[in-house]
């Protein structure tokens, strides 16, 4: 019996790392090509030059220490998908996928693409000997530590752009130097904070792993999970024109990079003496939402418990009832010895009351 092989296109050039303008413009073209140019799904695998990229609706001036970026020669830019700041570079695999949201095997809605695509990436890591799992809504984790972040946006009609950055190796000191988050104020503790919350392919395998090997595993995993074959390809004439237009309209355009379409960024510190010890809360607010929270102090707990609590609050409403509700969902007895949800909520509300504009 003859079976028809389904081909997807693969844009891949691992011979060089690309500028943020080039990489992001190619990614934005992928869903356009699927929607308007009769292209099958396109996977774009590549690496960026050392760079930092904010989410579509982030305040770049509040998120980054731009002067440090300039001094260190780190490019900065704004992507078209959501989420927070990501550090990119030659040791981090960037993945862009243009695909119709109704494609068989996907969830059929924007929120539903994360599970199936995280599964593909998890299978890719499995090929390398790493056991990972999808941590809804948007992370791939290994033993409670983030190894990849996922984001997506509808671009045109039913076609969407899916973005991922997968950490093969990572420069934590660089991150703490160029990011302008409350975490920067915890510089000395910061290394522990980040190393307890993030991991990389190299760290998990205890050896240097070539990026090319990781890229190969991702390709193979897509082929197996979707039952397709990749055809290596390059942007055609139509696509090249779209790429050039995006470069000009977005990624070298200061109005795009420094867009003011974002919630107001604010930061607050809350201190509260409790019977469990001193609680210190660093709160980064994005409009009425919690962009980030760091729970620290001299209480007794484990980093896993603290990370779980912090994560439960990330990108949720900063309203008191919402904070209490979200903490209660993950709370277990003695997660922080001697503390309870109302006390922790109160400390967070103090940080909120003390907020200042960045």
């Amino acid at each position: 019996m003859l079976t028809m092989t389904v081909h997807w296109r693969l844009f891949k050039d691992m011979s060089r790392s690309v500028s943020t303008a080039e990489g992001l413009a190619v990614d934005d073209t992928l869903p356009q090509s699927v929607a308007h140019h009769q292209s099958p799904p396109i996977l774009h695998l590549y690496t960026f030059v050392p760079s930092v990229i904010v989410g579509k609706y982030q305040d770049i001036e509040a998120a980054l220490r731009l002067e440090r970026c300039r001094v260190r020669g780190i490019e900065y830019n704004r992507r078209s998908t959501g989420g927070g700041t990501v550090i990119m570079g030659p040791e981090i695999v960037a993945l862009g996928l243009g695909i119709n949201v109704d494609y068989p095997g996907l969830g059929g809605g924007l929120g539903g693409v994360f599970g199936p695509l995280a599964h593909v990436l998890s299978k890719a890591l499995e090929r390398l000997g790493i056991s990972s799992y999808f941590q809804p809504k948007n992370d791939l984790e290994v033993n409670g530590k983030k190894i990849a972040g996922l984001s997506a946006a509808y671009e045109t009609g039913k076609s969407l752009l899916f973005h991922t950055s997968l950490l093969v190796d990572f420069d934590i000191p660089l991150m703490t130097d160029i990011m302008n988050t409350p975490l920067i104020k915890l510089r000395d503790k910061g290394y522990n904070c980040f190393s307890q919350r993030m991991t990389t392919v190299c760290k998990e395998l205890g050896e240097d792993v070539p990026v090319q090997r990781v890229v190969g595993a991702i390709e193979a995993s897509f082929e197996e999970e979707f039952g397709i074959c990749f055809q290596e390809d390059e942007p055609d004439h139509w696509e090249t024109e779209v790429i050039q237009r995006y470069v000009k309209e977005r990624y070298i355009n200061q109005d795009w990079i420094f867009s003011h379409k974002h919630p107001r960024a604010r930061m607050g510190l809350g201190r509260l003496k409790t019977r469990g010890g001193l609680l210190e809360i660093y709160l980064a607010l994005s409009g009425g939402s919690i962009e980030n929270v760091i729970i620290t102090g001299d209480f007794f707990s484990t980093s896993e418990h603290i990370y779980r609590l912090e994560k439960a609050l990330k990108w949720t409403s900063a309203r008191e009832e919402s904070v209490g509700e979200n903490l209660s969902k993950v709370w277990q007895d003695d997660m922080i010895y001697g503390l309870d949800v109302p006390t922790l909520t109160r400390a967070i509300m103090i940080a909120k009351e003390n907020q200042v504009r960045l």
Partner: protein
Amino acid sequence: MANIKGYNMPDELYYHEEDSWARVDGTKVTVGMTDFFQKEAGDIVFVDLPDEEDEVSQGEVCGKIQSRKWIGNLVAPVSGEIVELNEELEEDTSLINTDPYGEGWIIVIEASDLESDLGNLIHGDAVADFIEKQIKKAEQEKAKEEG
């Protein structure tokens, strides 16, 4: 029937298949996102609003809604001119979650071809079928996530 399988879908509203709703008051149409959308999306963290006086066509993407990391579309349910924006959303996007048909409204459109546009929207008895299909789709998505 306002409550369909746990989702509040007020009878008097008209619904676009991309999850926006329309409340008609003369030629003015207030627009927001449905209870189904906000429950599926989770916490809304930003709304990229259009400008007042923008002309929009029925079915056109006229704004973007960011929930945690993904960005969805605000689709105009009717054609016309945008005459009002909910500026409260700049400070508190969670209104879309807490009160999607009240304080969480997003824009008001002065409709230009209301009668014809309303005929293309989901209303009355058809709402139950629509929401049941949406629920089924969401359940399939979740099953895939868990699988």
